[in-house]
C-alpha cells in the first residue's frame, strides 16, 4: 500500500490524530516515566491496528510497503501527541535497516513481528546515536556501525538504562553479542537506516513543534492579565508568528527529503540533513516560545506542556547534531556546485 497522494496522507494523519487524541497519551507518557509502560504499550497496539508499525515493512513480510512519505506523516502525528517509546527506531530505522541488509533469514525472523506490532525494536549507532532509546520496551536491540569496511550490524544486549531529560525516555548503551552483517554492504544499509531514522525524528520534532504552537495559542487566548488575554499583546503575537513561520517552512523540506531518500538519489543525505536542521530549529523555537507564553505553569511537571518541551530537547540532539547535519548539507552542495534549482522539478 501507499497512500499515494497528499489527500490520502491528510486523511491518514487525521485518523491518527483522532485516535491519539482519545487515547490518553499524556497520562500514558507520565506512567511510562514512572516505569509503568502498560498504558503506553496499549497506545502502540492501537497504532499497530492503524497500520503505523507496518508502513516501512514490505507487503511480502506482512507490512504495507508504504512510502517514506507515509512514514513521515505518521511520525509527525506521533510527535504531535508526544507518544512515548522508540518511535523513529521501531517505525522507521530498524525495518529499513533489516530490509536493506537483504538477508531472507533476518527478514523472516523480525519483519512480520515488527509489522504486526508484536515486536518493538530499538537501535544504537555510535557516535550519532550513542544509546539505544527505550531498550526496556524493546524486544529487539541492534547495534550498528556505518564506517565503511568496518560497517557492521550486531544483535545487542542493552546495558544499564539512564534517564533522558525526557522522563518518558530511557537511554541504554548497547554491547554487540552476535554479528548479523559486516562489510561495505552493511555500512550502506546502516547509512540508509540512519537517514530514515533522522527523517522520522525530524518529523516527530515538526509534530511536537505544532503541538507546542497550538498549546501556546490556546493558552494565550484564555489566560487573562491586565484585563485582557495575553495573546492580545503584540510581544506575544509576534513571537508566536515567528514560531508559525519556522514550522511552515520546515515542512516542505521534510516532504522533499522523504521523496529523495525513497528514490535513493544522490540528494538523500543533503535533503535529510536539511530537513533535520530546519525541523529541529523550528521545534526548539516553538518550545522556547511555548514555555515563555505559558509562564510559570509551563515550568511545572503538573502541566502536560513539559512532555513536549523535554521531548524536543531530547530529539534535537538525537540522530546527529545540528553541526553535523549542517556540515553534511554544506559538503553536498559545495561538492555538487549547484543551486537548489538544479533543473529538477520542485513539485510532484
Amino acid at each position, binding site marked *: 500500500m501507499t497512500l499515494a497522494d497528499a489527500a490520502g496522507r491528510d486523511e491518514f494523519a487525521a485518523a491518527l490524530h483522532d485516535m491519539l487524541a482519545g487515547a490518553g497519551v499524556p497520562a500514558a507518557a507520565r506512567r511510562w516515566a514512572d516505569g509503568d509502560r502498560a498504558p503506553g504499550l496499549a497506545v502502540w497496539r492501537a497504532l499497530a491496528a492503524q497500520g503505523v508499525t507496518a508502513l516501512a515493512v514490505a507487503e511480502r513480510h506482512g507490512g504495507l510497503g508504504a512510502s517514506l512519505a507515509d512514514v513521515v506523516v505518521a511520525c509527525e502525528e506521533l510527535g504531535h501527541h508526544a507518544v512515548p517509546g522508540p518511535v523513529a527506531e521501531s517505525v522507521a530505522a530498524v525495518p529499513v535497516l533489516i530490509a536493506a541488509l537483504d538477508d531472507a533469514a533476518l527478514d523472516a525472523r523480525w519483519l512480520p513481528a515488527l509489522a504486526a506490532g508484536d515486536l518493538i525494536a530499538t537501535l544504537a549507532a555510535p557516535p550519532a546515536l550513542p544509546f539505544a532509546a527505550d531498550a526496556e520496551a524493546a524486544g529487539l536491540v541492534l547495534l550498528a556501525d556505518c564506517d565503511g569496511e568496518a560497517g557492521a550490524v550486531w544483535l545487542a544486549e542493552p546495558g544499564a538504562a539512564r534517564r533522558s531529560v525526557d522522563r518518558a525516555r530511557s537511554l541504554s548503551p548497547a554491547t554487540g553479542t552476535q554479528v548479523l552483517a559486516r562489510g561495505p554492504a552493511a555500512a550502506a544499509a546502516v547509512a540508509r537506516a540512519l537517514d530514515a531514522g533522522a527523517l522520522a525524528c525530524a518529523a516527530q520534532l515538526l509534530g511536537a513543534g505544532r503541538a507546542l504552537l497550538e498549546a501556546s*495559542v490556546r493558552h494565550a*487566548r484564555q489566560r487573562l492579565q491586565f484585563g485582557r488575554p495575553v495573546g492580545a499583546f503584540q510581544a*506575544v503575537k509576534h513571537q508566536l508568528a515567528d514560531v508559525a513561520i519556522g514550522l511552515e517552512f520546515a515542512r516542505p523540506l521534510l516532504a*522533499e527529503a522523504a521523496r529523495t531518500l525513497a528514490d535513493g538519489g544522490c540528494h538523500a543525505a543533503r535533503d535529510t540533513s*536539511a530537513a533535520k536542521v530546519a525541523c529541529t530549529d523550528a521545534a526548539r523555537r516553538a518550545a522556547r516560545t511555548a514555555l515563555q507564553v505559558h509562564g510559570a505553569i509551563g515550568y511545572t511537571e503538573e502541566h502536560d506542556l513539559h512532555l513536549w518541551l523535554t521531548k524536543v530537547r531530547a530529539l534535537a540532539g538525537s540522530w546527529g547534531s545540528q553541526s553535523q547535519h549542517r556540515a553534511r548539507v*554544506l559538503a553536498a*552542495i559545495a561538492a555538487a556546485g549547484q*543551486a*537548489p534549482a538544479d533543473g529538477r522539478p*520542485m513539485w510532484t
Partner: protein
Amino acid sequence: MSEPGGADGFRAEVRDWLRAHMPASPLPSVDTAAGFAAHRAWERELAGARLSAVSWPAEYGGRDAPLLQWLAFEEEYWAAGAPVRVGQNGLFLLAPTLFAHGSEEQRRRVLPPMARADEVWAQAWSEPDAGSDLAALRARAVRAAGGWLLSGTKTWSTRAAFADKAFGLFRTDPAAGRHHGLTYLMFGLRAEGVTVRPIRQLGGRTGFAEIFLDDVFVPDADVIGAPGEGWRIAMSTASHERGMSLRSPGRFTAAAARLVDLWRRAADPADTALAGRVADAWIGAQAYRLHTGATAARLEAGGALGAESSLGKVFWSELDLALHETALDLLGPAAEVDGVPGPDGQWLDGYLFALAGPIYAGTNEIQRTVIAERLLGLPR
C-alpha cells in the same frame, strides 16, 4: 523526470534565449538616467521574444504560462544573472489588479505598452503620514468634469524618478470611514501639476522619489473599479505583492548558489560558524523554493492565497538579509569596498537592497500581526 505543464521545453527555451541575449557586461544602475534607459531597452528585447510577461494571456503580450512555468522562467532568469526588472511594479502589481478589477478597455490600453516597457510604472502607495497605516492616507481626488483632480503627496515611490506613470489610492469621499471613500487611480508622472523629487537612498542612489500632486487631472477612464472601492481592490491583490510574484524563489536560489561558490573560493575552512550560516542560507532558499512550488500547485488547482502570504513575506525578506550578510562576512574586510566589478561586487549592492525588504510591501511587524490574528486566531 519531466516537469508538469510542459515546462521542460519552455525552460530550455528561456535558458537558450538568455544565453544568446544576455548583456555582455552588467547594465549601469537602474537608478540612473542612463541605467534606466538601458534596462528599458533590455525589457523591449525580452518583450520581442514574448518573455517579459509570460504569465499573461497571449492577447496582451504574454504566453498564458501557468504559475509553475512562470516559476521555471524566474529560476532561469535569476540563475543567468539577468538584469533587474525595471517594469516590476507594473508587471507584478498593477497588471494583476487590472486582470482582477480593470475593464477590458483598460487592459487593452495599458498592458501591451507595459509589456514592452514603452510605459514603465511606479507605485504610489505611501504618504508622509501614511506608511504601515496606509488607510490614514490623505491625498485627495476631487470630482471634475469627466474625471478627477488629484492633490497631495506620495512618497517612497519606487522607480518614480524615471518612470512614466504611477498607480495608487486616493481619498474621494473624506466623509466616509478610513477604509471607505478610497479610489484606485492611474496617473501620468509627467502630467501637468506633477512634481517628482528623487530621494537618495541609503546606498546613495535615487531608487525612489516623492511625488507632489497639485490639481492633476485624471480622466474617469483611469479609475480602476468603482470609486470608493479602492481599499478592497488594493487589498485583494496585496498578497501578490507580499508573496511569490514580488519575490520568486529563483532570486534566492541563485543567490544561494553564488554564496556556496563564494564559500568554496574564499572561506577559511576552520570558520565553522560561517559554514553553518552558509548551510542555513542554502536550506532557507531550498525551503522557500519547495514551499512556493507547493503553493503554486495549490493555486493552479483552484486554491486561493490569503493571509498566509504574510508567512512568506517575513521569510523571504529575512532570508535575503541572511544570504547577503553571510556573503559580506565571508568577504571579510574587502566587503566594505564600494563599486567592485564582477560577482563579488554584487553582494554589497544586494545587501543594501535586502535591508529594505523587511520594511516595504508591509513591514514585517504588520505581517507578524496578520499571521497572529488571521492565521493563529489570537485576539485583536
